[in-house]
């Protein structure tokens, strides 16, 4: 099953077209046009990878990242940035983003990153499941 993706960007045209292209490639996609909307979607829909614009009016990408990581620690975030905000994107990675991409990005590169992020998330989840199983087994004294 492919990664469930959430696109958060204030450029409506960009988000919509990219969503269509991702859907064509069989990725389930949700969209949001600002950070708050994205957070709302995250709490309603199960999402694996968030593609997050750094520079947005209202809450910016860095703050949104912090909120996402706080509320949904397993969700991987890829920062999307214009050249001028590369530093911000790197700052985001320090705070737990998976990677960053520069606008305009090409589809294959993005998908490769999304898949990597998704694999990482799945690996994370598997390890958590394993740990949980071991924990239960230990408790039962097997």
């Amino acid at each position, binding site marked *: 099953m492919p990664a469930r993706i959430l696109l958060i960007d204030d450029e409506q*045209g960009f988000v919509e077209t990219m969503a269509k292209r991702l859907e064509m490639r069989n990725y389930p996609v949700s969209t949001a046009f600002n950070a708050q909307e994205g957070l709302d979607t995250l709490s309603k829909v199960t999402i694996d990878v968030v593609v997050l614009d750094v520079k947005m*009016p209202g809450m910016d990408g860095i703050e949104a990242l912090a909120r996402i990581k706080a509320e949904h620690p397993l969700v991987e975030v890829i920062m999307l940035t214009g050249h*001028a905000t590369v530093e911000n994107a790197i700052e985001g990675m320090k705070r737990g983003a998976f990677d960053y991409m520069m606008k305009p990005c090409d589809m294959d590169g993005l998908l490769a990153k999304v898949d990597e992020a998704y694999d990482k998330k799945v690996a994370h989840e598997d390890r958590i499941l394993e740990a949980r199983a071991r924990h239960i087994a230990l408790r039962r004294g097997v």
Partner: protein
Amino acid sequence: MSDHQYYHGLAKSMMATIVLVSIAPLFIIALIAGYQYSVAYEEKVEAHLRELVLKHDQSVDVFLEEKIAEIQVLAEVVGVNRLQDEDGLKKLHDVLVRMHGTDFVDLGLVNDKGIQEVYAGPYKLEGADYAEAEWFKDVQKRKVYVSDVSLGLRGVPHFIIALQMESEGRQWVLRTALDFIAFNKLVEDIRIGETGLAYIINKDAEFQTTPRRDMTGEMPLLRQLVKQVDNSSKLGRGRAAMTIEADPVTGENIIFVTSPLKSGEWLMVFQQEASDVFSALNRTRNLLIVMVLLGGISIGAMAYLMSRRMARKVELSDMEKEMMNEQVIEAGKLASVGELAAGIAHEINNPVAIMVEEAGWIQDLLDEGLNKDDNEREVQRALNQIRNQGVRCREITHKLLSFARKIDPTVEEISLNDMVQEMAEFCEQRARYANVLIETSLADSIPAVEGSASELQQVLLNLINNAIDAMDPGGGNLDIMTRVEDQNVVVSISDTGVGIPQANLSRIFDPFFTTKPVGKGTGLGLSIIYGIINKMDGEISVKSIVDQGTTFTIRLPMAEGNPDNVEQGEG
């Protein structure tokens, strides 16, 4: 050009200062030194003249007294009896002539009737009757008599010393004529300078010595001089009294030094033209004047050259300053453009990203086949989107280009409203990301202002950028207002940002003052704004409350020739 006049005036005032500062001391020194010198010199010359006259009047007096004493001794020692003897008298006269040269011209014994009974000398004067002579009458009263100089009976200038003697109840008078030449020499030898001469006159201003030159023209003056002696004015009373009179002949000032002789009967006079007396002083004065004149000329020339050179230097340094100023403005502009670049890059990246996506989408659809579903319509939509985003890019780049062209200081009429609108739009994207809402409230029919459009653009952009920075993070409202106030066009830019602490308010326009971290701000923005506004004859003021916001207000004079501005004329 008025610049030229300015530097010309500068050179002139510098020259005046240099000349004044250098010539004034020169003059003062020349005046003081000259005055002191002339006073000292005059005193010295006067003292010298007095001394001269004193010495000579003394020697004349001594001469007279000596002669009188000699005759007296002669009379006492020899006695009348021997004098009555003609041979004895002759012998006596011979002795006198041998001892005293020709001083004693002759000797004679006159009886109480005034008849010269015995005579020894070169003339035949035996039996001469002096009964009516002045001196004979006088000697009866005074015992000793010294006459004025006269031609007498023999027609040769001489003077007489007469002595009364008594023998066996009879009165005798011993008289001797003294040669005038010897006596004259005493006085005549006094000669100083070209016009200095000495002579002796009696109470009737008759010459007792022969003056070296003809004095007839000066006689009235001399008479007056003698009269003054009688009038017991200071002249003539004291020994070596000095007076200055104008010569009736030449009109020159003449210095007279007078001293009474012969118990005031004669007057020794030394006279010299003042210009002659003080010729050395005059020479010195002329030299001083020439020196001051030459000094003044050389100072003037130096001052002229120096002031011209200095004015030229000032002009050059002003030009350099102007160039520096332009460079600083340019640098400030680059800085503010650099600040913008971040926002602009992002602004352009967004539409480019959309275009890339749309292009990719079209590619996807083409792969799928255009006849499927409504793929063709979707391609049309995508193409439209690409065109729209391209137009968006073009607008951004055009704005950027219009702003980033080289600073053009040409003065033109600027519509402030249009410019505010333009700059507000220009900054809108940046403001949006900073959560700042820009609102403009522009008064209708704002008159034009005069200035360089690109410079004014820079002012507005800088202030808007500052305002946005002041509200970062968190955002706020940025209000830009234009209005007309007292013949001024006013723009105020208010933010709801952090405000400026009171301590910093007075320094914000200083060059290089910045509160931003190193590398973030040049500290030149506001000082450049200040410079530009000043150049436009405008004013910039600031009001700020910490944590509530800051308002910058710019007042610019209306452009001349504006209809609202006509009555005011050149304000």
